[in-house]
């Protein structure tokens, strides 16, 4: 069985500075994979490399066995990978409903259609309503996204990410800045919505990571120093030294 994501010997350099070197990462289909590491370790860069936001200097990235390194973000998205952003990245002047609907359009085959009334597309309407229900924002559907509370915007962010029905979901610090209750809610939401899909998550909150992930990879200075189950990671001396040792845990 092919893996959902494979990164082989990926390197990313900005000028002379190599911020990612010899990065090897394997994410199996259907697994929930967390990437952890200290600040500046290159977690977000790894996300950007996989999702096509930036192209690797060298090395190979495959999605479901197909090479995607060097493709544009929308080409990668069309092949079934969708990501969220660490800083909320929604369509601020459009309503919650429109935000989700935009994220549904390509997946339902509307492409760049300029001859169809967007309000008369039953499948688009049904899927948008479903996603809104899933992220508990139905009662806020006509509010411009920019006016939502922070936690609601984070939920909308997740909603936009999953709306296209991608089978590989990547979430970049989905609970950052949330209160404990909000975090619990968000984790339950993520668990439910990524059921049966592959999830890659970057997260600082260790309780979220160890509670959610099937496997964890530890990234330090642009290099994966360990990859394994939560128990293996917890017991790994290299990880303790490089990362967990520094944190209250």
């Amino acid at each position: 069985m092919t893996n959902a994501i494979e990164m082989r010997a990926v390197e990313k350099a900005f000028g002379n500075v190599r911020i990612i070197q010899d990065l090897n990462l394997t994410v199996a289909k259907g697994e929930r994979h967390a990437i952890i590491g200290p600040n500046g370790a290159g977690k977000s860069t790894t996300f950007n490399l996989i999702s096509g936001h930036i192209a690797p200097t060298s090395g190979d990235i495959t999605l479901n066995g197909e090479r995607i390194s060097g493709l544009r973000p929308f080409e990668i998205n069309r092949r079934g990978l969708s990501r969220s952003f660490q800083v909320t990245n929604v369509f601020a002047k459009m309503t919650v409903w429109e935000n989700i609907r935009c994220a549904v359009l390509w997946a339902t085959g509307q492409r760049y259609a300029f001859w169809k009334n967007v309000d008369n597309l039953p499948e688009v309407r049904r899927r948008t309503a479903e996603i809104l229900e899933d992220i508990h924002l139905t009662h806020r559907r006509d509010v411009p996204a920019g006016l939502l509370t922070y936690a609601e915007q984070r939920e909308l962010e997740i909603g936009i990410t999953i709306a296209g029905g991608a089978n590989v979901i990547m979430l970049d610090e989905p609970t950052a800045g949330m209160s404990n209750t909000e975090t619990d809610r968000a984790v339950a939401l993520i668990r439910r919505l990524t059921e049966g899909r592959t999830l890659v998550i970057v997260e600082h909150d260790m309780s979220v990571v160890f509670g959610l992930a099937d496997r964890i990879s530890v990234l330090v200075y642009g290099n994966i120093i360990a990859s394994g189950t939560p128990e293996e990671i917890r017991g790994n001396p290299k990880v303790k030294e490089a990362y967990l040792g520094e944190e209250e845990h």
Partner: protein
Amino acid sequence: MTELTSSAPSPTGSTPARNIGFYAAWGIFILAVVLLPLIFRSGGSHTTFSLIGIAAIFALSYNILLGQTGLLSFGHAVYYGLGGFLAVHGMNAIAAHGLPVPLPFVPLIGGFAGLMFGIVIGWVSTQRAGTVFAMISLGIGELVASSSLILRSFFGGEAGITTNRTDLPALFGWNFGPQIQVYYLIGFWLVISAIAMYALTRTPLGRMCNAVRDNPERVQFIGYDPHVIRYLSFCFAGFFAGIAGALAAINFEIANAAYLGAVQSGVVLFATFIGGVSYFFGPILGAIVVTMLQLELSDVTTVWQLYFGIIFIGIVMFAPGGLASLLMMHRPLVRAGTLSMILPAYLIAIVPTLLFACGVILTIEILAAYSQGNAASSTIRLFRIPFEAANPMTWLAAAVLTIGGFFVARMTWRGVTAAWDRAMTAARERGYHA
């Protein structure tokens, strides 16, 4: 956000009351287009209405770029002008070869010309949004405007290319000689174009244009190429600008270099922005106001561009959403029935505001009279009251009106703000939100 969007059938079951309002608004618009020239019957007003109609189509097409897709173009007149030139050449060819094409179809020539140039020029210029797009549009605008003076056989040099619209075959006995017939031709295309451009905003592409405007980066991660969206938007804008240009060519029976120059590009930007980019009907308001200003102001003052600039700066500073936003702000108050709570404050504020405006106008006119060196002999007429520009009493009046008006106006506008808050709070209590 386009407020008219919320008037479209709502996804979880349509609300009939809103739909009635929506169709009523379009009905009133079409009725106005049909009836206005029958109410105002002078030839002058028919000319004015014709110019407004052309400007409205042009401004709506510009708003496909600015309001819908977030693209600031400084060269939109290129597609208007090229549409106009192609239409003139088309009309001359039709007349010369006796082709069976009546005048009402000529705007399509302009439209397809605008579309063709949009297709060719757009691919490169829409690679990037923001400053890059703005600069490229400026460059292409200059390029086309300067080639219009070089390629004389096509553009006719300084004089331009003339045509005669009555040489084309008549349709239902209309030869389009009289201005009223030309007006109805323009009105017909205005209604068709406005409906088409509104419909465009309600398509998947139209919605994604808004998404690209709000956040082009995120669009890439939901499967869309923002470049393609910008490009298609650009082509549509070119098409409708071409229709407007062709109508202008029909109206004036000439196309010249001014059609595609920077001034024309600037005027459409002004009109769209003054009207308001965030509502579909905003550019129509802007087209009415700017056309009227261009026609009327130039009759009453020599420095009309200065007033034009002041009005534009005022809108940018105090009402960046344009006239449409100013109007639509009041919608929740109208719905909640609390509008009457602010009307007295408005009436109080309007008096010193007008006095302040008179002071500013007097000051400008005095300075203009002096800078033109004819202060001693010039009389400023303000609301039929004559003022001698060289008379110190006039200076005093200007100073008192300007300074006094400013301070009193500022006080009364505070009252408006307070009344506004009260009316808005009352509206919220009745369940109506902005």
